């Protein structure tokens, strides 16, 4: 079984994002970029499937700017076998939309014929939570989103999904798309030898044109602004003082 894992290069989750004063987007200059945390978990899960003898090959793919090759190298160091970079933009501020990414992934999946596509449930930059569902739609296959547990069997997979009401367990036919939530696993740290080895693993670069996909955006981003700021209030000195404030300021207590 082949597993395809799409990964995205995003601003590191520890960075406090700054909005550019002219409303044109967020500041990316000198900002630490990392693999999207959810995607890292997807890579880890795919590598574990390989280690368990359930997967033969783990292919990682990223759609974006050439610098995205760093997150592909990270994924290779975690244990993926080969990488594909789809060079779809040159300006790091260009965010290729989920619909276009899904079309690209569909075209690659048509070629590679993975049995399982494991990906993050959302990217922590645009927070859209859509690419996996869109890919499953285009492939006409099953989807299991927000997964915290995965058991791959013959011709089907059993997935535990984190939903608003608790957990939902579903059985999906293969091939399928599984999008992972944070509690799926804890990714390993790549060892130094594996980081070295990653540099020699197969790495291909292709373009959306070669795949026949138009990546022109559908959404026009008119403006990006700071959210309304919330001011710090006051420090109270005791539970009694807190109760007094709550009685003054709210009707709920």
């Amino acid at each position, binding site marked *: 079984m082949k597993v395809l894992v799409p990964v995205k290069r995003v601003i590191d989750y520890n960075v406090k994002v700054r909005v550019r004063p002219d409303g044109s987007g967020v500041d990316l200059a000198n900002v630490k970029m990392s693999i999207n945390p959810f995607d890292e978990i997807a890579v880890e899960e795919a590598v574990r499937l390989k280690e368990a003898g359930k997967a033969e090959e783990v292919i990682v793919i990223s759609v974006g700017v050439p610098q995205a090759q760093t997150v592909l190298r990270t994924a290779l160091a975690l244990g993926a076998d080969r990488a594909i970079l789809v060079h779809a933009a040159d300006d790091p501020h260009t965010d290729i939309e989920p*619909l276009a990414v899904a079309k690209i992934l569909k075209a690659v999946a048509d070629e590679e014929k993975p049995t399982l596509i494991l990906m993050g449930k959302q990217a922590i930059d645009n927070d859209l939570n859509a690419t996996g569902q869109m890919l499953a*739609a285009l492939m006409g296959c*099953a989807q299991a989103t927000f997964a915290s547990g995965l058991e791959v069997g013959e011709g089907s997979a*059993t997935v535990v999904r984190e939903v608003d*009401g608790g957990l*939902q*367990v579903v059985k999906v036919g293969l091939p399928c798309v599984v999008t992972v939530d944070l509690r799926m696993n804890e990714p390993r740290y790549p060892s130094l030898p594996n980081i070295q080895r990653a540099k020699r693993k197969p790495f291909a670069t292709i373009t959306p044109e070669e795949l026949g996909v138009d990546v022109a955006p559908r959404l026009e981003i008119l403006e990006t602004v700071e959210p309304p700021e919330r001011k710090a209030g006051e420090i109270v000195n*005791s539970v009694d003082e807190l109760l007094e404030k709550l009685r003054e300021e709210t009707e709920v207590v």
Partner: protein
Amino acid sequence: MAVLLIAEINGGELSADLTAKSLTAARQLGDVTVLCAGAACSGAANEIAAFEGVSKVLCADDPKYGNALAEPVADLIVGIACEYDHVVGPATTTAQNILPRVAALIDSMMISDISAVIDGETFERPIYAGNAVQRVRSRDKTKVITIRTAAYDATGTGNSAPVESLSAAGDPGLSEWLEDRVAENDRPELTSAKIVVSGGRGVGSIEDFSLISSLADKIGAAVGASRAAVDSGYAPNDWQVGQTGKVVAPDLYIAVGISGAIQHLAGMKDSKIIVAINKDEDAPIFQVADFGLVANLFEAVPELTDKL
């Protein structure tokens, strides 16, 4: 403009609050038809018909929609989507599972988790865990949207819209529901509660999390948790508040033993009043709290519960 709102149905029952809040946003877009898809959901359809501003309810009552699996429900929606300018639903795990699938099937770019409607094609949505707000315009023929319900008040009742039945679409048979693991409790829903009391890693154990629940029960609040508390097994996953959990905006949010990481703030910083109880005076949660109490939670929480 014609709007199709996907009602939030769970086990045949209407999630009235989430549906009524999304309806408020949907009404800003145009004339609203509500789709009620579920198993034995005719009661839910009648309930929706009473919401103000609903023109019509389409009821697709069929066992295959009972667990809201994305593949069959998306096919059902795609069958009628072209009649609408907007297909919208609440940004719940159910609709967020289904609607991007619909969007791709009709070649429309998904617009998730909007917090404001500017006009029929322009919307605002938070990005980067709410650290920025983006204004986007879509020219897609049918726009597919999920709504951040915490940004809207619920629409009231007093209507009696017609209910029509909608025949089920085929079942693609791609997936199968096996089981729901749901812990029942009598507390209010996290996303509709007026008060939320949340506990974090500082609470330290599943046993001591009862301090949080007791405080909540004393004031009729819902219970929430940080990701660290859920990861540590102190609280179930559906209590998680934040960028990847639920987004809440109650009248009062009490954060106990929570440091205030941006990913947690993303889910609660629009609460009207925020109270933080933390032993570390430098905890970032105090930067958004209206009232902060620097204290050991094991002393402060029982005292607070007692005196309320």
